[in-house]
């Protein structure tokens, strides 16, 4: 059905790191666009008075906000397989400290593993990565782990 996708070049990405990427300043306008897409009216995402009385302490980002909003420092910095269709297989987010409007966040990502499976529709490559997000004080605020799937086309 074709050669393995796990060439030496692909395997050389395992263990590689990228970042810190372009920092992202957390802005209310960007949060608004996100919550409008999921129609989430939770006041922690726009009401400072309300948010002050929560764990977050101030207006905060939705938990998934950073996953795809970082422009660099993520697994997508690596172009591991060209001519492939990309989907997410698994996501994990771990929130350590609140992220608030006005914070500046930057991301570092490590490719943890790459493996292959042959399915009905052809070969699939699985890229496991771990991303650490730090704020302007150098504190780790969030960690995300992803399993990104590439279907060769």
């Amino acid at each position, binding site marked *: 059905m074709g050669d393995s996708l796990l060439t030496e070049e692909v395997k050389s990405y395992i263990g590689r790191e990228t970042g810190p990427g372009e920092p992202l300043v957390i802005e209310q306008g960007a949060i608004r666009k996100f919550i409008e897409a999921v129609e*989430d*009216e939770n006041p922690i995402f726009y009401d400072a008075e309300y948010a002050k009385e929560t764990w977050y302490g101030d207006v905060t980002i939705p938990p998934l906000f950073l996953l*795809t909003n970082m422009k660099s420092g993520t697994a997508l910095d690596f172009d591991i397989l060209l001519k492939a*269709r990309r989907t997410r297989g698994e996501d994990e987010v771990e929130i350590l400290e609140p992220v608030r409007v006005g914070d500046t966040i930057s991301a570092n990502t490590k490719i943890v593993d790459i493996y292959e499976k042959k399915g009905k529709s052809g070969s699939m490559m699985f890229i496991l990565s771990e991303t650490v997000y730090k704020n302007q004080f150098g504190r780790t605020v969030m960690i995300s782990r992803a399993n990104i799937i590439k279907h060769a*086309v």
Partner: protein
Amino acid sequence: MLLSFAGFLSQATDLLERGGDIQKQIFFEGVEIGVSISELVVGPITTERLVRWAAGAGDFNPIHYDQELARKLGLPNVIVPGPFKSALVCRMLLNWAGKKGRLKKLKSRYMGMDVPGDTLTCRGRVTDKYVDKEEKCVECEYTVENQRGETTVKGMAVVCFDS
């Protein structure tokens, strides 16, 4: 202002929405293992919603908005992004947790495809509760199911409550 916009959007696009409001405050002491989390129903999902997601989440993978490309790549339609579904689950969990709660962890396994026109039901159940480094934590498992009865996301979450 945001609330009325969201209300207008709901009416204008005739969405089936249930459980979108923050629930009456629950407390760690009162949470029982096995109890259900108030479910969230969202849909029918429109391509407009997916475009808003692309802009709001910064995810411009064309399989989520470019019909012609999606079909060329062997997909039946543009597909609903996994993180979008995870974000709906977060909405359900934070509504349930209320003002005194916070989300500590979320894990999602994307098992199936959903497409525009689908209606998704998010359901959760408490599976454990414990104290971790002075934080009172409740562990849940959840599913997201479409109107065809297919479970397209499975996962777990940890919600913590202050004292």
